[in-house]
């Protein structure tokens, strides 16, 4: 008997008949040719989030973004007109990488008045115009107007910067109804950032799988709760409050009774003193915009709502927590069996040591959990690659995984068919 109501069809999955209920083939996570097809069909023509506007606070602020899956490096920069633009990180003279420090393949950031190539000192302004050529007279019929930086489509939604090498539609159209439903959330007030990074030896979809279901939580993370509580959670299992699919995107809404817990003895001693834990600081920050939430949050309107996780296809997840903070995940593929994982926690800047340390505990706790989540992946990748088993049954609480793999499969097929 479910604890929370499911759709009339009897399950979340069957509410979306196009998903089917059959076991899912995971060859899509081990086949190098398939990965190349994903790069072409998805990463080179989909809106990708590369960070927040707070990383570009003023004119001349820039950062670079290494997009291995799309096969390029980009420069993101705020111009004199305050516009944020994206350019391929390549000098028009002979293809030298334009912006980098020490290690050409590492991302970098800073503030500048113009970009100067390290090789022959060609200079570009913040709008990408070529403004200076060393020994210009030595060239033949060179018109600087023809040699500006190559621009890439760039747009901003609620402070999140997106780029697209080959847009098929506007960012607003692409993000659609799901994003509209969370517009107005006070993301801009949450500027205290903790960013974690790791290179993970698995296909990018496998880590999204790991974070797009909470079915694993009472089992994998059992030791993180006090014993009695862990046993109780295992007995209940996990059920989402609500699931919803929006084109390629999807969301899960979950309860979260631990912030604050009903009974303080349920949590660890340090959590009791700092009033914080995995679900974040228990005391909501004092800012506007948290009392009446946008309509897309807590869609089940459940009193024990704790968190909404949004998968913004293909590789960006946004998690909004009831106590008033948010978390982002990015999964940047570098090979069929490798990706760069990035997680950022965003809090309202603390005013006191008590608030600061409550956030510290949330960050430390996040890392403890993520290390458990991440470590299962390399072994999963190895075992999938054995092809000893290729089809896997996914349950109703894993609907977002079924959807992720289906959307990917459909896009790869559509792209291949169009090329015929």
């Amino acid at each position, binding site marked *: 008997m479910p604890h929370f109501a499911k759709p009339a069809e009897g399950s979340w999955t069957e509410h979306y008949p196009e998903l089917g209920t059959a076991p899912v083939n995971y060859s899509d996570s081990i086949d190098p040719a398939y990965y190349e097809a994903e790069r072409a069909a998805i990463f080179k023509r989909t809106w990708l989030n590369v960070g927040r506007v707070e990383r570009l606070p003023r004119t001349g602020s820039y950062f670079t973004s290494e997009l291995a899956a799309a096969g390029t490096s980009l420069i993101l920069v705020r111009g004199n007109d305050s516009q944020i633009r994206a350019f391929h990180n390549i000098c028009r003279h002979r293809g030298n990488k334009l912006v980098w420090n020490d290690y050409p393949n590492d991302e970098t950031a800073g503030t500048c008045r113009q970009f100067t190539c390290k090789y022959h000192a060609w200079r570009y302004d913040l709008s990408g115009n070529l403004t200076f050529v060393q020994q210009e007279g030595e060239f033949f019929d060179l018109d600087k107007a023809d040699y500006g930086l190559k621009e890439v489509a760039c747009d901003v939604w609620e402070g999140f910067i997106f780029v697209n090498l080959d847009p098929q539609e506007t960012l607003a159209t692409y993000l659609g109804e799901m994003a509209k439903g969370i517009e107005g959330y006070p993301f801009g007030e949450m500027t205290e950032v*903790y960013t974690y*990074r790791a290179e993970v030896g698995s296909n990018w979809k496998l880590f999204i799988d790991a974070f797009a279901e909470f079915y694993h939580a009472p089992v994998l993370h059992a030791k993180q709760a006090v014993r009695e509580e862990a046993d109780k959670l295992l007995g209940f299992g996990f059920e989402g409050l609500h699931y919803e699919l929006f084109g390629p995107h999807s969301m899960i809404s979950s309860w979260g009774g631990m912030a604050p817990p009903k009974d303080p003895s349920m949590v660890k001693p340090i959590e009791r003193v700092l009033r914080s834990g995995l679900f974040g600081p228990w005391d909501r920050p004092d800012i506007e915009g948290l009392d009446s939430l946008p309509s897309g949050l807590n869609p089940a309107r459940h009193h024990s709502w704790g968190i909404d996780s949004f998968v913004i296809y293909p590789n960006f997840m946004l998690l909004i927590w009831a106590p008033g903070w948010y978390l982002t995940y990015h999964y940047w593929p570098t090979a069929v069996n490798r990706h760069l*994982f990035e997680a950022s926690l965003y809090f309202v800047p603390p005013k006191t*040591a008590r608030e600061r340390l409550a956030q510290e505990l949330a*960050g430390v706790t996040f890392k403890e959990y993520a290390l458990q989540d991440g470590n299962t992946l390399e072994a999963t990748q190895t075992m999938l690659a054995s092809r000893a088993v290729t089809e896997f049954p996914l349950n109703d609480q894993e609907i977002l995984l079924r959807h992720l793999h289906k959307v990917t499969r459909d896009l790869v097929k559509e792209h291949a068919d169009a090329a015929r």
Partner: protein
Amino acid sequence: MLPAETLPAGFGALEPYLAWALPTEPERYARRLASTMDEMQAFYDTAFPLLEPALTHLDKIPLHELPEPERTLLHLMQSLIMVSFPVEVWKQPRVPDSGAAYLDLVVEPRI
């Protein structure tokens, strides 16, 4: 002998653990992995009862105006949080079953 102003008054019991007064998470995490459970248990047993008094003391001063002894105290309490998982939960320095997995903190607010 350490100078008297290393830590705020009332927190002298933490002086043997000043090596834990580390301003960044990578330093705190590395020290955790390099420590024995006995070392972390001893630090925890001394620091944990002082956590609430430390919060009460530090909250009297704006976070970004903390004098040096208070900053040191804050860094020690950040390390207390770092060792709380090994001491309260894992009974070992590493997250169990985390093998070769790592997760580097590359951006963090520093005090």
